[in-house]
């Protein structure tokens, strides 16, 4: 039975792969040319980097919902872990002094790099996601070095930090309804509003991504007793 299932799945996978390869190799040219309209509207978007323009202006609504997904994943983890679990001890019981020295050196640089990425996003590759990811990486490194304790159930301030970026984004999106559609930036203010949103998002994305790692209280109870 098990072997039959295996065989069927492998055959199906091979068939799907063949079909897709054949289909992909004779695709016609796409009818709609979005890169051209991105370029044509870039001047009105408030930023010069096309990916940032798509991410925060042309398809900013996707990004708004995506931050909600991120916040939701954290919420899901909180609800799975339950409120009563103890915070997890730092991964290494005796932190490595080399790692500590490295972390002390690297973390300020990483925070600087995050600031640079945030600012650079308007003109060249970079932006809130990359900046937030670097901040999260800094937090993980600090935790591994034993310099930053893991979190338990987040307090009010931390919750504000986690949800703040999303709420700011949502408030800007809804505030624009006074004049026009949801998320319809006036071209003259688009650059400033996008930078404001990205700044908020950098902090929240950094905290949430770090939280995905640090906020896990469900260290096995049995394991904690053993070690």
């Amino acid at each position, binding site marked *: 039975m098990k072997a039959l299932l295996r065989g069927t799945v492998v055959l199906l996978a091979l068939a799907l792969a063949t079909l897709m390869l054949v289909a992909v190799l004779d695709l016609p040219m796409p009818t709609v040319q979005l890169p051209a309209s991105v370029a044509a*509207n870039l001047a009105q978007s408030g930023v010069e980097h096309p990916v940032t323009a798509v991410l925060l202006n042309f398809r900013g609504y996707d990004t708004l919902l995506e931050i*909600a*997904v991120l916040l939701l994943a954290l919420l899901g983890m909180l609800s*799975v872990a339950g409120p009563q679990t103890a915070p997890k001890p730092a991964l290494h019981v005796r932190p490595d002094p080399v790692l500590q020295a490295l972390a002390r050196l690297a973390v300020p640089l990483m925070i600087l790099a995050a600031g640079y990425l945030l600012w650079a996003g308007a003109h060249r590759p970079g932006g809130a996601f990359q900046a937030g990811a670097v901040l999260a990486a800094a937090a993980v490194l600090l935790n591994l070095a034993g310099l930053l304790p893991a979190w338990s159930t987040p307090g009010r301030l931390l919750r504000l930090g986690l949800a703040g970026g999303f709420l700011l984004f949502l408030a800007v999106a809804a505030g624009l309804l*006074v004049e*026009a559609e949801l*998320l319809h930036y006036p071209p003259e203010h688009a650059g400033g509003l996008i930078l404001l949103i990205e700044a908020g998002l950098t902090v929240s994305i950094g905290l949430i991504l770090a939280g995905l790692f640090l906020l896990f209280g469900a260290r096995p109870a049995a394991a904690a007793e053993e070690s």
Partner: protein
Amino acid sequence: MPDSLFASLFDPLPWLIVLPLAWASLAFLLGPGRGGRLAITSLALQLLLALSLSEQLLNEGARIYPVGGWGAPLGIDLAADGLSALMLLLTQVVGLSLAIYARAYFAAEASAAATWFWPLTGFLLAAMNALLLAADLFNLYVTLELLGLAAVGLVAAGGGAAQAAAALRYLLVSLMASGAYLLGVALIYATYGSVSFATLTPLIAAQAPQAVWLAAGLMLLALMAKTALFPFHFWLPPAHGGAPAPVSALLSALVVKASFYLVLRLWLGGFAPLGAAIAWLPGLLGAAAIVWGSYQAIRAQRLKMLVAYSTVAQMGYLFLIFPLLAADGLAFQAGAMQAVSHGLAKAAMFAAAGVLIHATGQDSVRGLGGVADRVPLTLFAFALAGVTLMGLPPSGGFLAKWLLIDAALHQGQWGWVILVIGGGLLAAVYVLRVLRQAFLPAADASRFHPVPRLMEWVAFGLAAASVLLGLRGIELIALLGVGGTA
């Protein structure tokens, strides 16, 4: 177009998405266990917004809303027509009722699930509304992920090993389906250079290379898996049957409907030129779902498992419409009516099951003896919801089946008629099984726990709505007609 000052501010459409997102994150800020009152107030407002949008659509016809002001294909459009309005109304009605129910439920039943229930529910309902208004394939991917993660979080919240295992299985199925859906989107974007419905529909009708067929297949299969259509139903009973009652009700009434809605939307819209060739497949799977789901419901030992398997069966009816879709719009109307009436009835049934389980202190069909004396209103609600599931007049379920039989007769496809009637009889068997147990004398009269009256009344209200829906058929079908999908 907005003609007066602030007209764009009072447009109900964007607020249906913004408001639940806002209260969900505010409920998170308020902290564990908080946010119930905020949720109920906001949901009442959302119901008004949905009503106002429906009225707008009836007066002015279907709408396109360009988020960001760019318009498709560069920007993302939202779209609202009769079908989305009807589903939005269902979502807000069920959401509001279950929010009221949940507040009483969590007050009566100290449960760890209450900790993050409100923000998770807020995001779930925001995802529902965003999905029902979406008109962009990639935007739909994001809303599907939002919906899926919220649902998984709710299943797992505060539960034990069984719930965690059910949630994990649900998550893996949901993620795999999302992956297949995303690959479909990638193939579509490669072929046409756009992901917006409005742009794609004429392009697919004009020319559909093999890649588009594959994409359509991947996306429809993914959505059927998310709808728990047989044989992808295996994740549903443990997830819906194991969660706390308000969560089960939300998932069975709304979440599985969302992916069905998308199948219908894609089938009637962009993929219409491709659908006709394979319409027998969903019909056949739907038939199998009716038989298998009913059989399992008839055999179930636990009350909530019975109700969950009944969902598997009832989702089958929704897919019977695909081989019958025709210009007369009968099958389309049948599908929409079935989605709405099952949504109300199943919310009522899970709400009633929650009351019965709380009252008897156990989740078993056999343990129901004596509940007819103790919680007669709830039992009546369960029976009324059963009337809708069986398809007896004047319920919404009756109207849906009537339309379906009418559509089948118009096309001379007799087989489906027998299936619809037979499915109703099978539903009668499992509903009557519960009622019969309930009227048996209690084994031990002292073991009943008191139940908040509010919970009973919510279950009754939802059940009554599902039955009375049939009397409002003309209005509902008029609303469905907006936008010309019918």
